[in-house]
Every structure is written in structure tokens, then in C-alpha cells.
């Protein structure tokens, strides 16, 4: 702990520990991920509003295609496993990053990205197929809600992959400096959170939505 960078202008008597504010400001390695955790929670609220909209509109099919006619559970199963394993190897990357192992970290991060890309590819395939069948988001309120909810998750995954690529480049160029490993930790929080949201999506949208 004592090797962590000091927080803003920390001097005299203040240590990096707190607990209940007894010792002064916390160090950046705590503050930054906590702030990011708060942001992730606000993102969860965003998804809850999308879920709420989806739940309201799931039966508003306007005479058009319904869940049972559209969703393919096998594809969803593959997507789910891809994203889950992606989350797992991201965790492994965090372990190797903590030990400043460049090649191992880049390898696990690359794998994280590739599995994420597999997920996105399948999702895009599913979306294009649906649009091709006339089940695009403009067809009905249900489809608008579906594409927005699942698409928003996909957009987050895309943004995550952009971020991942940038992080891999940064680590390569600058090494495992403290501010960079902090960002990597934030990325992993984000990536795990996306998997948590996917659990909700595949359960509510794809499984419960297609119960006989």
C-alpha cells in the first residue's frame, strides 16, 4: 500500500488508509475504481429502465412477429458461453497484469477481445436476420424495445472492445504504470458488469420470453 501514488496533495500525517475517514483521503488506487463502480451502477439503472420498457412492450407486437417466432436459443447459448469465458479470461488478465507480465496479459486481453467479438458477431447476425425477415425495430413496439435493450448491451460491448484495444496499445507502449493498471481494473469491472447484464437479458428476453 505504501508504494501507491499519493492522492491529490496528500501531506502531513494523512496516510492512505481510511475506513471511516479517520486517516484522511484514500489513495487513487481505491478512489478511481470506486468512482467507476458508481458509474457502472448508474449504467445498471439505465438498463433497468430499458428492461422496464421491454417488459411493458413485450406483448405490443402489433400483429407482427412474437418472441417465440424469432429467438433461437442455440445461438443465445453460444453467445452466453462466449461472453462468460471472455469475462473469465479478463480476470486472468488482471492477475497477470498485477504481476506485470506483459506477454501473458496481452494474450489474455486479446482472447477477451476475440471472444467479445464472437459475441458481437453472433448478435449482429441475429439482428440482420431479423431485419431481413421484416422483424426490424420499426415493425412494432415490442421489436423497438427488443432491439434497443439488446442493442444497447451490444453497443456497450462494442465500446468495451474499443476501450480494450486502446488499453492493450497503452500497456504495450507505456508498460504497467499505476494509472494504466487502474484503468485496466476499471475495464475489468465494466466487462464483468456487462456479463451480469447479459445474464438478465438471456434469462428474461430469450428464456422466459420463449417459454412454451
Amino acid at each position, binding site marked *: *500500500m505504501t508504494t501507491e501514488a499519493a492522492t491529490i496533495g496528500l501531506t502531513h500525517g494523512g496516510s492512505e488508509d481510511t*475506513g471511516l475517514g479517520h486517516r484522511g483521503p484514500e489513495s487513487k488506487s481505491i478512489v478511481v475504481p470506486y468512482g467507476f*463502480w458508481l458509474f457502472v451502477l448508474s449504467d445498471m439503472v439505465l438498463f*433497468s429502465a430499458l428492461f422496464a420498457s421491454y417488459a411493458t412492450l413485450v406483448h405490443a407486437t402489433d400483429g407482427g412477429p412474437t418472441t417465440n417466432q424469432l429467438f433461437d436459443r442455440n445461438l443465445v447459448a453460444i453467445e452466453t458461453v462466449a461472453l462468460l469465458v471472455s469475462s473469465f479470461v479478463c480476470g486472468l488478465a488482471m*492477475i497477470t497484469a498485477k504481476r506485470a507480465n506483459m506477454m501473458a496479459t496481452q494474450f489474455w486481453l486479446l482472447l477477451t477481445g476475440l471472444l467479445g467479438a464472437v459475441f458481437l458477431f453472433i448478435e449482429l447476425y441475429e439482428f440482420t436476420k431479423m431485419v431481413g425477415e421484416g422483424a426490424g425495430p420499426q415493425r412494432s413496439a415490442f421489436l423497438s424495445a427488443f432491439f434497443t435493450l439488446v442493442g444497447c448491451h451490444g453497443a456497450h460491448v462494442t465500446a468495451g472492445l474499443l476501450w480494450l484495444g486502446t488499453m492493450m496499445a497503452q500497456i504495450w507502449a507505456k508498460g504497467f504504470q499505476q494509472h494504466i493498471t487502474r484503468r485496466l481494473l476499471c475495464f475489468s469491472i465494466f466487462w*464483468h458488469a456487462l456479463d*451480469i447484464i447479459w445474464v438478465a437479458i438471456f434469462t428474461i428476453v430469450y428464456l422466459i420470453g420463449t417459454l*412454451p
Partner: protein
Amino acid sequence: MTENEDDLFDVAPGSPHNNVLSEYVAYVIGLGLALGLTAVSFWVASTSSLWGPGIATGLVVLAIAQMGVHLVFFLHITSGPDNTNNVLALAFGVLIVFLVMIGTIWIMAHMNANMSASPELMNLQMQH
């Protein structure tokens, strides 16, 4: 307050801490549990050997369990005193999620029900 000041530092969310399991083991167990819960979910959703009306609830329970697995094994959210802020923030988030989702579903269901004069009219409206 008589805490031992030395171990009272907060831990960053998501950061592996070395107290119970070694770091790799945590992730492997997490992956195993999550894969298992996923498989069970898919099975539950497609089997006919369970009581129909209970399936949706069962799936929700499984989903919550899996989210818990992610939180504990991947995000390392535990109940130690060093994690209090993280858990409180999570609890606040969960409360809001619950209020938004349940509130909306409850309100909108009532609204939709009150909007329709009769089932025939409801059908007409839905098929605009």
C-alpha cells in the same frame, strides 16, 4: 471506536484481494458455477418435467444466483468491513433497479388494463 486501524483500509471494487482463495482459484470456481447455472437455466427453460408456472420464477432465481457468482468471484465483492462502501453502493443500485422495474411494471399493467373498455376493443387497439 476501537478498530485496529492498521487493517482498516478499503478495497477497490473488482480488485482481487488475497484473503481467502488464491486469485486463480476464485476465477475458476466462478466460471464453473456460472457455466453450471447457465446450463441449468437453459435446461429449465426447455424441460417439461417442471411445474409450468414455476419455471419463470425459477429462471429468475437462477439468474440472480449467477449475478451473485459474478459479483463475488469475478468482482470480488465480499462482506468484509473493507468492502462496506462497495456493498452499500451496490445495495443502493439494486434498490433503484428494483423500484424502477417493479414500479414501472406495476403501473403500466394497471394503466393498460384501465385503458381498455373490453377485450374486443383491446384487440383492435393492439392491432392498430
